């Protein structure tokens, strides 16, 4: 008994202490070049950063050197240089971000104590210290954008260097960044210059405050980053590791180098393990690394499989992944809501690890595919995520569905579990609010949406549905070829929605798409197709009173009996706002069918089909392949003329059984 007690005490003592932190081996230097081949982008904004992470207090002390070039042929830059200070979104409740979000994002509330902020301690252009001359353009007291005054204008083709130093407090993990316990996900962490946009010669700054439903926009460049972290921490970061040394004080300095990227993010955590695999891509292999806590190993395997598949599929469909490494961070479950599901160049965070996500429920894989896919749609095609969020989120969603279907089959691409199946795009449409109830068009700036739901439904779901519908309209192969061409034409540039549609139109032989694009992307609502009525009656000669006077004759059913043929009438209607040409399949009792086409781009909101047939009509189905995904309610697209109660009877029987089960629990 005494021995047992002693053993218990020892076990309790061991269990109660975490022990000294485990020193991790110094990571191996990556041998691969940061990007394959020649420079891909203009490399206008190049950063050199040195950051020391205080893991106890979740603080960063850093210096930054920005070398920024005003492109040749652009307008002169005068007055100021605007920088994003994203971390100030979490400084207090007065920031634009907190005002708009109400302190809640993706179901996670901002911690009432774990605020985050960034303080610029020095800003120099040349020898001039400008830190006391900084201004915050707001609005209000918002400090997520700061203007650095310029003494001299920056001429086209001229390069300027800005030296900055800053201290930063990370927030408790929220809206993509921060800490949770020892886990640190560090994104949007350094002062980042805005982007010059507009017609050549008339550019202006695009440097919006950090809005709640907005993501990011930046120029491509080269990043050289030194990170000083405890030697017990595992680090993952954008780019390739080019230097690693122990500092002799239980810290180490890790040097990263990245090319042709427009952001740099990193993760530090002492408990992470790493699992690697290889994606085969034209031009060279890509090493895929999944960082995970040991208890998440089973999910890490699923993320690795999905990550490799995503890189291979996106590379094959659009453009080979040009960087040698993809890091996928699988945040601890209690940090996943705040840090999970975010994309950065060559580094993404995934999410959805949960017991109910059984194999067959592909939601974790979907998150990984979506985030990896962002390395094309925003990582390479760096559209303005704040002003045209659909151009990366929605277009990426469209591509994700193709990848999911290739991996898991069309029918069960999202869920294939215990007899229940769901295809990605159709499932998301079903889960979303009807498009007619979303009061903002797809092409709305992120902060112009009425609420987060409207932002999500228009930006992700309706865009995906509209693109799938457009694909059906112009043909699958031509549309996919046009998408590929768009990626090739605008990789490492800043495409806009106008560029996107112009590119598609050019690739599709110059055909006018505006009749669909305008209402679908820049108007509210969707299609509202339905079989309004359908009937078939036996055909017979006209009955009633025929002739006048003495010639008057009453034709009765006996005199004009039903013949062999059937007279049928079908009315199709569309009360929506987006016209879509559709096939209508008519099925008959003798097993035959015929297909009608309604191209209602310019001929009203209803379409009558009248015909005679030797066999009566049994079913009418609009869009039999279920491809018009912008249609809100597919249930009323399919009508059978004679009711068949077998399905409702089965449902009733099932309900009776479970009702009786409840009766046996609560009664007698």
């Amino acid at each position, binding site marked *: 008994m005494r021995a047992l007690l002693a053993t218990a005490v020892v076990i309790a003592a061991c269990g109660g202490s975490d022990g000294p932190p485990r020193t991790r081996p110094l990571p191996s230097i990556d041998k691969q070049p940061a990007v394959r081949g020649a420079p891909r982008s203009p490399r206008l904004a190049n950063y050199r950063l040195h950051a020391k992470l205080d893991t106890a207090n979740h603080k960063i002390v850093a210096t930054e050197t920005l070398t920024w070039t005003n492109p040749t042929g652009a307008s002169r830059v005068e007055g100021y240089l605007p920088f994003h200070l994203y971390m100030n979104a979490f400084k207090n409740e007065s920031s634009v971000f907190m005002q708009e979000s109400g302190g809640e994002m993706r179901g996670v509330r901002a911690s009432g104590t774990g605020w985050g902020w960034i303080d610029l301690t020095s800003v120099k252009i040349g020898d001039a210290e400008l830190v006391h001359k900084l201004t915050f353009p707001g609005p209000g007291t918002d400090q997520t954008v700061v203007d650095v005054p310029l003494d001299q204008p920056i001429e086209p083709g001229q390069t300027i260097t800005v030296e900055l130093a800053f201290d930063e407090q990370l927030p408790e993990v929220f809206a993509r960044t921060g800490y949770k316990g020892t886990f640190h996900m560090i994104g949007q962490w350094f002062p980042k210059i805005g982007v010059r946009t507009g017609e050549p010669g008339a550019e202006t700054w695009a440097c919006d405050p950090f809005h709640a439903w907005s993501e990011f926009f930046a120029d491509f460049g080269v990043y050289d980053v030194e990170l000083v972290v405890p030697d017990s921490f595992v680090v993952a970061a954008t780019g390739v590791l080019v230097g690693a040394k122990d500092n002799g004080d239980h810290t180490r300095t890790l040097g990263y180098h990245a090319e042709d990227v427009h952001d740099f993010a990193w993760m530090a955590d002492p408990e992470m393990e790493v699992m690697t695999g290889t994606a085969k891509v034209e031009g060279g292999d890509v090493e895929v690394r999944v960082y995970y806590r040991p208890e998440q190993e089973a999910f890490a395997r699923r993320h690795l499989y999905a990550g490799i598949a995503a890189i291979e599929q996106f590379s094959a469909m659009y453009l080979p992944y040009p960087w040698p490494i993809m890091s996928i961070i699988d945040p601890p479950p209690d940090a996943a809501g705040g840090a999970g599901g975010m994309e950065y160049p060559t580094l993404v965070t995934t999410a959805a690890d949960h017991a109910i996500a059984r194999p067959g429920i592909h939601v974790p894989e979907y998150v990984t595919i979506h985030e990896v896919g962002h390395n094309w749609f925003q990582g390479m095609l760096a559209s303005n995520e704040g002003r045209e969020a659909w151009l990366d989120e929605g277009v990426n969603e469209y591509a994700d569905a193709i990848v999911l279907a290739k991996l898991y089959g069309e029918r069960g691409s999202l869920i294939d579990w215990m007899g*229940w199946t769901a*295809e990605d795009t159709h499932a998301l449409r079903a889960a979303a609010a009807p498009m007619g109830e979303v009061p903002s068009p797809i092409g709305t700036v992120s902060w112009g949406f009425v609420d987060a739901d409207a932002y999500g439904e228009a930006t992700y779901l309706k865009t995906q549905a509209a693109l799938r519908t457009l694909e059906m309209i112009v043909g699958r192969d031509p549309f996919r070829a046009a998408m590929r061409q768009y990626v090739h034409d605008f990789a490492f540039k800043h495409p806009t929605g106008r560029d996107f549609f112009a590119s598609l139109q050019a690739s599709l032989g110059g055909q006018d798409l505006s009749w669909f694009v305008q209402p679908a992307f820049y108007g509210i609502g969707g299609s509202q197709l339905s079989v309004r009525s359908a009937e078939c009656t036996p055909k017979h000669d006209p009955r009633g009173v025929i002739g006048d006077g003495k010639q008057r004759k009453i034709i009765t059913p006996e005199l004009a009996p039903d013949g062999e043929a059937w007279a049928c009438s079908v009315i199709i209607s569309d009360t929506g706002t987006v016209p879509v040409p559709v096939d209508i399949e008519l099925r008959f009792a003798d097993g035959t069918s015929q297909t009608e086409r309604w191209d209602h781009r310019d001929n009203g909101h209803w379409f009558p089909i009248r015909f005679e047939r030797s066999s009566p009509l049994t079913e009418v189905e609009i869009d039999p392949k279920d491809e018009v995904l912008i249609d809100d309610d597919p*249930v009323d697209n399919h009508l059978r003329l004679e009711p068949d109660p077998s399905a*409702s009877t089965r449902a009733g*029987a099932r*309900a009776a059984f479970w009702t009786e089960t409840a*009766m*046996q629990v*609560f009664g*007698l």
Partner: protein
Amino acid sequence: MSAARRERIGVGAMIRAGGRTASHYTGTVLGVFVVQALLAGAAGFGIAQVLGSEFAKRPRFDEAVSGDLTALVECIKHAPAAFKASFWIGVAAVLLWVVASWFLVGGVYAVAHERPEGKRETARCFGAGGASTFLVYVRLAVLASVLHLVVMVALVLGLGAAAERMTHALTLPGLLIPLLVGLLPAIVIGVYVWTAIDYARAELTVRRPTHDELGAFRALVRALVFVARRPVALGHAALGWLVFVVVTLGYVWAAQGHAMLGTGGAIALLVIRLGLSLVRFGVKFTVLAGQIELTETRPPPARRVVEQES
């Protein structure tokens, strides 16, 4: 009451006694079961009519019933009122059964206690038993609602405490263990409360002829004390619930992947479900009869002495 009847009896004796009663009064078992099945069937029929009126011409619903999750969500979005109506039909059937139970369980207890012979005498005993205790059972149900409130509080607190771990569970044990731990206080209190209510009802039936002053409140308090003092009562009831849960989960597990389509499949499914319900009902009947066996060993409540003025 004989000395033998006052002996302490165990779970085995209660189960055997319950089994004997159930097998002896198969007509009563089947009769009450038929009432229950008819009520559930009527609810199912009503639900089928509601859904049929909305979807009999809509083949998308066929796909929903066949396991297409997207189609199911689309159908719910298409006609939410039909699904709400179906839900409330089910709830109404359950509530109706609860009310009917206040009569039926009185009949079952009366038969188990009086052990009548012959169909006519059994029917008379059942009807008289149910009728004579109906109102006092209603009062008992009203009083017991306070206890049900305690169960609900335990449920909310328990699940609230488990929510954090369940939200971040990575494995099924990681999900189910906190869930069960969270549910445990409510389950324990619930089984205790429901068992006490059963014993209060049983005593109201058994003592009715001799202790007509025994009211719902006193019977409930006595039952709460009795069940707390006699773990065998709780164990016996818990065993009944365990069998109920195991049989139901076994069916759910076995039914996975067997769509049982077509007319033959539908008939087979109906028979299987009816059989399953009958088994569970038989278990419940056996438990009720066993409770009478134990109740008969309880000392009767003290009679009130009424002093008459001379």
